[in-house]
């Protein structure tokens, strides 16, 4: 300890860390907590936009032969709904928790590369704005979130629509990859003393494996999108059958990315649930090691099942069998997780608080989605279900019933930590019940109409096929689901006005974030903690023989924090403009590209040579 004291004495003159204020401080921030909040706020906004798109779709489908939406508008809306929810909703909401929670969970003061972290945020935000700006030109992407070749070729999609899609996804991919490198290094290198890998909170494990999936799958879609872009802009032959090109190549590359992407969407949610279940059951997570290995096994298998999205393309019995079996195997580690969560709650002293409501809702809904998933892992069954509303029901049960329920649970769980006040429990429970009932009203009937043969991605359906009633129920459900999100926001408003101050540890948590004041100070930990088990706070509480005293807010003088920087924001503009320049090339030549590349290089050079001490 002596060195520490000397170290502090040397910088005793340093000023205490005060919370920075003003717009500029947010634009130049490198604080993982602020970046997390901005991720969350933008993701929720995009989530609402994606939700409005869904409501328009539901309004159109409320009655047969409806002409509320044109087929063209419908194509744009379902494409943007899928693309938005996946890349601008669920992924960045998970990124909010990565950003805010990983450093707190592992006892670090920030991520490994704070400026790269800001860069990821800004690239994501600009990419999302760019993608949605296509609506202003009336040219939103309209080829599905999977962008199948050669429907996406210049010949069949002559407008700017699919250019926006390809460029937008490239931009978003860069944000994910930069964040992937950052969190991978952060988790490996920045853990507090004693925080061995097998002592990390499950959320950190799940995030770590998610980053691995991002790092290994995003380069593949990058290449696929480059091919698409070249075909559309430069007339290459990647996906043109006339010159020997094969549209199947797109499907393979897309799903080699696309299936791991499914786990990129759900694994962080598994992590959140694995944090909430033990705390509200007052028991350690059941089968921690099994959970870690199950997560790793899911990720590993996730790279060997991509062709189950392609059973109807006629790959032959050998491929169909292989991918069927590999897909069925995934049910095993997933089942391990479900039973371990149940085992965690079993015999526990269950605290029925709002986060626990959403966590239990997740368990039930995700299991249902998982079971319909096993149903179409069998190729012959899938041939009956593919392209029908049954599939739409399946992936909404895992992505909404799964991911969104878990992310909402996480929001209720960590809200007091992030904003320093409690969310209202009454409104929270109302939110849960409304969302739970509305969710099932919206998506359960889709199983039925799907099995009756209602095709997805089609803008209307004829009367007299028995689809009407179910579709009306679905539309009512969707409206209520929208209302439940308003209840959520009403809760923010009410709770912020009431401002019941949150103690450091409102739930009796087990992990390090509950050891520091709510909200955390800019440097997170006045003193870097030393960890001796998986539940450090429970150890400390046991040692103290009861509740821990409220941690004081300290001055933090002498703690070195990286200074703010606006180069990440500028570099993010450079990246975004480079991709926009591809679309401008036909009209303006190489000049926009040269200007944007110069901006990027200028920012990177200044970034590299910026003093950080």
């Amino acid at each position, binding site marked *: *300890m002596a060195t520490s004291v000397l170290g502090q004495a040397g910088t005793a003159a340093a000023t205490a860390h005060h919370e920075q204020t003003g717009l500029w401080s947010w634009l130049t921030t490198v604080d993982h907590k602020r970046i997390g909040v901005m991720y969350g706020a933008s993701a929720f906004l995009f989530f609402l936009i994606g939700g409005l798109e869904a409501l328009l779709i539901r309004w159109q489908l409320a009655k047969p032969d409806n002409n509320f939406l044109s087929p063209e508008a419908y194509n744009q809306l379902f494409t943007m709904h899928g693309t938005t929810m996946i890349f601008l909703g669920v992924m960045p909401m998970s990124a909010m928790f990565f950003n805010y929670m990983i450093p707190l969970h592992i006892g670090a003061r920030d991520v490994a590369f704070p400026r790269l972290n800001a860069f990821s945020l800004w690239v994501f935000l600009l990419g999302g704005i760019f993608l949605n700006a296509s609506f202003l030109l009336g040219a939103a992407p309209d080829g599905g979130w999977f962008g199948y070749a050669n429907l996406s070729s210049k010949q069949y999609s002559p407008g700017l629509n699919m250019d926006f899609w390809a460029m937008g996804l490239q931009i978003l991919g860069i944000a994910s990859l930069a964040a992937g490198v950052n969190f991978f290094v952060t988790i490996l290198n920045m853990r507090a003393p004693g925080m061995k890998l097998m002592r990390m909170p499950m959320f950190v494990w799940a995030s770590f494996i998610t980053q691995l999936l991002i790092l290994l799958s995003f380069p593949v879609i990058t290449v696929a999108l480059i091919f698409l872009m*070249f075909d559309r802009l430069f007339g*290459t032959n990647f996906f043109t059958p006339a010159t020997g090109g*094969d549209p199947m190549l797109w499907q393979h590359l897309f799903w080699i990315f696309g299936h791991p992407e499914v786990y990129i969407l759900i694994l962080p949610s598994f992590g959140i649930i694995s944090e909430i279940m033990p705390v509200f059951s007052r028991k350690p997570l059941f089968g921690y090691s099994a959970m870690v290995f199950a997560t790793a096994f899911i990720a590993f298998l996730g790279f060997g099942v991509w062709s189950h999205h392609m059973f109807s393309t006629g790959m032959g019995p050998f491929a169909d069998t292989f991918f069927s079996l590999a897909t069925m195997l995934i049910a095993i580690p997933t089942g391990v997780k479900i039973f371990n969560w149940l085992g965690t709650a079993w015999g526990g002293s269950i605290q029925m608080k709002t986060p626990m409501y959403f966590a239990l809702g997740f368990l039930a809904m995700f299991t249902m989605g998982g079971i319909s998933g096993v149903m179409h892992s069998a190729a012959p069954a899938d041939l009956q279900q593919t392209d029908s509303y049954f599939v739409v029901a399946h992936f909404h049960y895992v992505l909404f019933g799964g991911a969104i329920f878990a992310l909402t649970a996480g929001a209720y769980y960590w809200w007091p930590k992030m904003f320093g006040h409690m969310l209202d429990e009454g409104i929270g429970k109302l939110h849960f019940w409304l969302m739970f009932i509305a969710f099932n009203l919206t998506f359960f009937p889709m199983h039925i109409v799907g099995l009756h043969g209602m095709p997805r991605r089609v803008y209307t359906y004829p009367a007299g096929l028995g689809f009407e009633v179910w579709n009306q129920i679905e539309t009512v459900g969707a409206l209520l689901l929208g209302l439940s999100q308003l209840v959520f926001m009403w809760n923010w408003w009410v709770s912020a006005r009431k401002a019941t101050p949150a103690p450091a540890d409102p739930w009796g948590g087990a992990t390090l974030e509950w050891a520091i004041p709510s909200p955390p100070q800019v440097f997170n930990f006045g003193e870097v903690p030393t960890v001796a088990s998986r539940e450090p706070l429970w150890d400390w509480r046991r040692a103290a023989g009861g509740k821990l005293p409220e941690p004081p807010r300290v001055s933090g003088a002498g703690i070195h924090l*990286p200074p703010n920087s606006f180069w990440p924001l500028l570099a993010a503009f450079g990246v975004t403009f480079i991709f926009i320049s591809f679309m401008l090339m036909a009209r303006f030549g190489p000049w926009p590209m040269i200007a944007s590349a110069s901006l990027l290089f200028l920012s990177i050079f200044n970034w590299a040579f910026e003093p950080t001490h």
Partner: protein
Amino acid sequence: MAHADAHAIHPEPVTGIDNRKLAIWTFIGSECLFFASLIGTYLVYRGRDTKGPFPHAEWTDPATGKLFEPIFEIPLVTFGTAVLLFSSFFVVLALSGAQEGNRRKLLTWLGLTITCGLFFVGMQVYEFTHFVHKGLTLQQNLFGTTFYTLTGFHGTHVTLGVIWLGALMVEAVRGKLTAERALNLEIAALYWHFVDVVWIVIFPVVYLMK
């Protein structure tokens, strides 16, 4: 003593590997999948062309009767490959110079590395121009499409590497690439080796395999 570094901006990395070095390894791992996809596509489309010109065989356009020579000329690209491989060796010597604080050694070998990189990029520019004159454009056939995309993205990586090493050269000339900061060069060198290794795969797969 556990808290000796509690106030440092970057506490000792848990793995013992510097954050930036671990990051470049992670990035390289990710890049493997990028090049694997490009090379995989090249292999899948190999020999599927309905029209030439072809990499190793002559082709007569049935419409015009015009004869197209085989595209590849192995000697030049073999020499370019050798130059690129030697540059990997040179950058190791440059790094050793930086670590020893031997400025002369650092400047010599770093300069040679950059020269080799520039030569390789120059060779590729010449090759692309020459191939276009021989009738192989990006749009001509699948071979043109996949060949230019794969080698073009590799060439872009080499170019970025040259710019990166060039920036370090400026630092070295100004005497700022000291022994304590040799890690800056080590990270760039890791990237440089990776780009070379990718070429070791591309060269036989694209140019030599018939």
